[in-house]
């Protein structure tokens, strides 16, 4: 046990654990349909964008979803709840371990892969999307981690039927 609590590795291990916790909370909020918890995980001034690997590589800025404020994320959820028509469905997120790309001045650049299975009301299950989350994470005033940016880069540029629920 002694080696595990070495002073040099403890902060990194702590950060990794906190990022894993953040990602699991994110996945649980969406998969449990607690959608209102989703915007709360972002800063007021933020970026959430859903795009594809091809667009990302080509530097194309448009997304399937694009929000630059927490208000826009809430609006996504209101539309999902009150306006949009789609067949009942759920997601199951499997999120890989986060890689910390850089951590300085309280800003952590991190990346994790994801796989989302979509479960339709009739029981049909499909691999709906795979890809990676490109994140900029910071601690809020209470010390909890939140997303300053989450860019969802889907591996495929083909989306089946519609994307109602955020990935």
């Amino acid at each position, binding site marked *: 046990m002694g080696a595990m609590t070495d002073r040099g590795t403890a902060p990194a291990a702590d950060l990794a654990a906190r990022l894993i916790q953040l990602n699991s909370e994110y996945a649980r909020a969406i998969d449990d349909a607690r959608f209102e918890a989703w915007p709360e995980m972002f800063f007021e001034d933020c970026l959430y964008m859903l795009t*594809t690997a091809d*667009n990302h590589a080509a530097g194309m800025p448009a997304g399937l979803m694009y929000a630059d404020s927490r208000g826009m994320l809430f609006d996504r959820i209101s539309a999902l709840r009150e306006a949009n028509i789609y067949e009942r469905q759920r997601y199951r997120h499997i999120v890989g371990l986060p890689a910390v790309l850089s951590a300085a001045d309280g800003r952590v650049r991190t990346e994790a892969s994801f796989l989302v299975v979509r479960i339709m009301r009739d029981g049909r299950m499909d691999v709906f999307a795979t890809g990676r989350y490109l994140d900029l994470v910071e601690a809020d005033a209470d010390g909890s981690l939140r997303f300053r940016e989450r860019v969802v880069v889907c591996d495929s540029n083909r989306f089946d039927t519609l994307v109602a629920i955020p990935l």
Partner: protein
Amino acid sequence: MTAPAGISPEPRVAWPPGMVSGAPYWAYQDEATYRLEQKRVFEGPVWNFVCLEADVGRPGDYRTTFVGEMPVIVVRGDDGEIYAFENRCTHRGALIALDDGGSGAKDFQCVYHAWTYDQKGTLKGIAFEEGSNGQGGMPRDFDKAKNSPRKLYTTTLCGLVFASLSDEVPPIEEYLGEAILGRIERVLKKPVEVIGRFTQALPNNWKLYTENVKDTYHASLLHLFFGTFRITRLTQGGGVLVSEDGGHHASYTIDAPGDANSQEYAKQGIRSESKGYRLRDPSLLDSVDEFGDRIQLQILTVFPGFVLQQIHNCLAVRQILPKGVGQMELNWTYLGFADDTPEMRKRRLKQANLVGPAGFVSMEDGCVGGFVQRGVATAGDEFSVMKMGGDGTQTDTTRATEASVRGFWKAYRNLMGI
């Protein structure tokens, strides 16, 4: 092959000649009809949208796409012209180009046995044409040029590239007619830049999506986002233009000052009126009248499979591609203008939330086609009812009409000869 005793193939219910105020559901289900569409519609005297001029800007730039289900290569030749030819090696049929596109292509070589084609699609080279060591090889009288894949006519309009297999298709301006042409020029008035591309796979026959795009009647009924935020209403100014042959349309709404008629929705108790639903961040709808005519929304189709969309400042083109009787793909290309200010570009990115597979006002269009495809599963002999606004296909100043959907069927029946 004989049918089991007592069972004979069910003849399809007849479609009364000239009827466009109803379509038999077998039209979305029948394999033979689907195969005939490839020949008579997509390979017929029509202009198929294939790509943007910007996609093939420099000599040697090419893109692969489809005309109906036919794989096609579109390439900018060294002479500056745009050529299109079937993406099918004439040796034994392999795809010639495998990527979505590329640049610097002087010629195209099939990977299977290395036959090569020039930028016009003409067969130029055959590996071991003379055989080896005096043995084998191709017959001396084999005419390479005559053994080229099918070539398509191409034309451009406002930065769009169209292709046709038929030498009977009129020039694009004539094909569209003055009214529709003006509506394209109105939007694509200067050079565009692609800002994103997405493909949406839809679980329905391609004609169900085409009908949906042309259907001005559903917009404010199916899409609650429209109704609630007064982006479009039947009671607002607007209308629908239908081309002479019925095939092309442009529907539009004009931003009417005030909203005196909005009570009509509430009175009818239609689902799309929901009180108290407000955006927390209305910057999404902060649009500017960039075309200077107060038209806040314009949806335009070019028969058979092209859509140009202006929803506020969100511009996009869509390509409708059939992928089997009950499947299709919709290729979205989101556009900005090359001279956009950073503010305008940002506005387009935000408004892109309205459209596409996750669009606040278009996500439903992704699923309704499938609802119909599944709903009519055993109703091949039944007909839809499209009598809203009568049974004509004329231009109208109301959107409470199915005139442009009937127009589609008019053009379709005419080409199909059914």
